[in-house]
C-alpha cells in the first residue's frame, strides 16, 4: 500500500493564490477580479505583482461575472475570486448566461467552499456548488484535494480554454500530493490500488479516504483510492474500470448528497456498471458554526465514517 505523508497542513486557497501568480507570470493575458475579498481568496500576491491586471469590483459579484465575461472577449483570461457561495449560487444566472451559454474563457474560483469553512456558519458554507456548476453545459468543474493540487489545478485552468469552476477550501488541510505534479483535467488520479472496495473522493475528503484505506488495510480489506479532482468532464472510464474490479464503491465529498460528485459517479455506474454504492456526504441539510474539525466530525465526513460505509457496502456486495 502506498503511503502519503502530510508534509504540512496548508490552505487550498493559498495554493490557488500561488498558482494564479505563476499563471500571471506565464501568460500576460491572465487577469484577476474580486469582490472585496482579495486577501481572503489569496489574490493579493497577484494584485501586488500585476496591479494593472487586477480589477477590484467592490461588493458586487453579479457585476464582476459580467465584467469578466466582457474582458474575455478581448483575449483576456479572467480569474474571478470570491467566497464559493457568492460566486456560484448568488450569481447562477450570470454564470449561466454570459459565461457558460456564451462559452467564455472565464475561471470562477470559489474559496471557502464546504462545511470546513467553520465558524462563519451556514450562510457562507456552500455544499451545493458542485451540483450547481456541473449542471451548466460547457462548464468544467475542478475540485483539487490539497495545496499542491490547488496550485496545479489553477495553472491547468489557465491553460484550458473555456469556462471553469475551481472549488477551494478555506482551512488548513493536509498537503500530501507531489509538488509540481501536472494536473490533468478530466483524468482521475489513482492514489492507492486495491481490490475489495473503491473509495472515490474529492477535495478535503481525499485525505480522509487515504486514512480510511489505511484503517481498512489493518482489517485486511484492500481499498482502492481514486481522487476525482475533475467532476466534469468525469473520467467515466477510470470509474467503471475500478468498479468492475472491486464491485463495491464509496464516494466521499464535502458536499450534499444531491448533485455532488457521488451522484456523478452513481450516474456513470448506473449506465455502465451497476455496483453497490454508499455515499459519504451531507444529507439534505445546512451547516452551522463550529471549528472546521468539529464540522467534519459532526457531519460525518471523517475517515471513520468512510470505513463504516465501506463495511456497509461490502455487506451488499
Amino acid at each position, binding site marked *: 500500500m502506498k503511503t502519503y505523508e502530510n508534509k504540512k497542513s496548508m490552505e487550498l486557497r493559498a495554493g490557488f493564490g500561488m498558482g494564479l501568480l505563476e499563471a500571471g507570470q506565464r501568460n500576460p493575458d491572465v487577469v484577476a477580479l474580486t469582490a472585496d475579498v482579495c486577501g481572503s481568496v489569496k489574490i493579493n500576491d497577484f494584485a501586488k505583482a500585476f496591479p494593472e491586471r487586477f480589477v477590484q469590483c467592490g461588493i458586487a459579484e453579479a457585476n464582476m461575472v*459580467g*465584467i469578466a465575461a*466582457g474582458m474575455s472577449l478581448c483575449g483576456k483570461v479572467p480569474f474571478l475570486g470570491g467566497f464559493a457561495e457568492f460566486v456560484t449560487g448568488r450569481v447562477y444566472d450570470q454564470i449561466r448566461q454570459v459565461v457558460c451559454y456564451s462559452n467564455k474563457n472565464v475561471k470562477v474560483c470559489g474559496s471557502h467552499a464546504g462545511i470546513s469553512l467553520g465558524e462563519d456558519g451556514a450562510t457562507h458554507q456552500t455544499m451545493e456548488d458542485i451540483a450547481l456548476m456541473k449542471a451548466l453545459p460547457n462548464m468544467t468543474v475542478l475540485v483539487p484535494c490539497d495545496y499542491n493540487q490547488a496550485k496545479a489545478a489553477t495553472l491547468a485552468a489557465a491553460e484550458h480554454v473555456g469556462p471553469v469552476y475551481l472549488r477551494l477550501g478555506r482551512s488548513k488541510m493536509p498537503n500530501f500530493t507531489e509538488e509540481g505534479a501536472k494536473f490533468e483535467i478530466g483524468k482521475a488520479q489513482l492514489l492507492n490500488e486495491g481490490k475489495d472496495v473503491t473509495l472515490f473522493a474529492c477535495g478535503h475528503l481525499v485525505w480522509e479516504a487515504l486514512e480510511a484505506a489505511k484503517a481498512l488495510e489493518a482489517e485486511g480489506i484492500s481499498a482502492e483510492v481514486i481522487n476525482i479532482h475533475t467532476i466534469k468532464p468525469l473520467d467515466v472510464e477510470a470509474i467503471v474500470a475500478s468498479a468492475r474490479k472491486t464491485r463495491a464503491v464509496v464516494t466521499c465529498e464535502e458536499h450534499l448528497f444531491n448533485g455532488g460528485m457521488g451522484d456523478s459517479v452513481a450516474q456513470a455506474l448506473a449506465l455502465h456498471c451497476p455496483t453497490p454504492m454508499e455515499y459519504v456526504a451531507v444529507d439534505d441539510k445546512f451547516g452551522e458554526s463550529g471549528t472546521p474539525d468539529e464540522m467534519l466530525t459532526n457531519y460525518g465526513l471523517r475517515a471513520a465514517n468512510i470505513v463504516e460505509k465501506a463495511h456497509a457496502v461490502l455487506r451488499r456486495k
Partner: protein
Amino acid sequence: MKSTKELQTIATQIRRDILRMTTAAKSGHPGGSLGTADWMTAMQFEIMKHDPEHFSMDGKGQDMLFVSQGHITPVIYSTMARRGYFPVSELNTFRKFGTRLQGHPSTEHGLPGIRMASGSLGQGLSVGIGAALGKKMTGDDTLVYTLHGDGEIQEGQIWEALMFAGAKHVDNLIATIDYNHQQIDGTTDQVMNLGDLKAKLEAFMWTVVVIENGNDMQQVLDGMAKAKALTGKGSPVAVILTTEMGYGVDFMQGTNKYHGAVVSADDLPKALAQLEETLGDF
C-alpha cells in the same frame, strides 16, 4: 457617410422587416424594436466604427455594441442583416427551429455580430464594462456601446455596474437607455417609478446626454455624436433616449400591448401600409 434622409429610408425598411419577421414567427417583441429602429439604424450605419465583413469576436479595432435587452432581436437582426453581417434572406428563419436567429441573441449558433448572449435582463452593462476594460488593457481606442430598456434598469445588477463604471472612470463606454416608459405589466410609472433618471445617473458619476426624441433621426445622430465627443474624459457616458414603443404604426404606438405580442396576419397589411418598402422586403 449617409444622409439623414437615407438613414430614415433604411429605418423604414427595418420597421417593415420587424413586423414581417414577428408576424411570420407568430412571436417576438415588435414594440421596443420599432421604438429603437432609428437609433439602431443610426448606430449600425453611421455612428459605430465596425466592419461587418470582418467580424471578429475580439472586436479589435472595431466598436462593440451589446444590446442588453435581448428581446428586441427583430431590430437587432434586421439592422445587422441590412448592414451586411449576414444575408437579408436569413431574416425568414427568425425564431424557427435550427436558426441562427434565436429568440434572444446567442453566440451558440455562430451568428456574426453577436458577441454575448443577452436577454436575461440587467447583465449587458457589466459585459460592456468588461469589454471596455479589455480594450483599455490592449491599447484599443475604439468604443463600447450598450443599449438597455428603461424597465430593465430595475435590475439591481445595472446599479452595481453604474457604480463601478463611474467610480473606475470607464470612459470608453456609452450606455444608452431606451426611455419609452413602457414595460410588460404597464407603464414604468405604474410598475416601478424610475424617478429622476438623469439625476440618478449623474449621482453615479456618469456624464448624461438627453435625446428628447429618439424617433427623430437627426436628433439621434446629433445626440450620439455629442456622446462620442464626451468619451475619453474620465467618465462613462449615458444617453437617455426618449422613444415611443411601437413607433411608425399608428395602432401600435402609445401602448405596451405590442411589447411581446405580434401583429396578426390579418392586421399586418394595415401596418405595412404605413411603411413604404424602400429597400426591398426579405
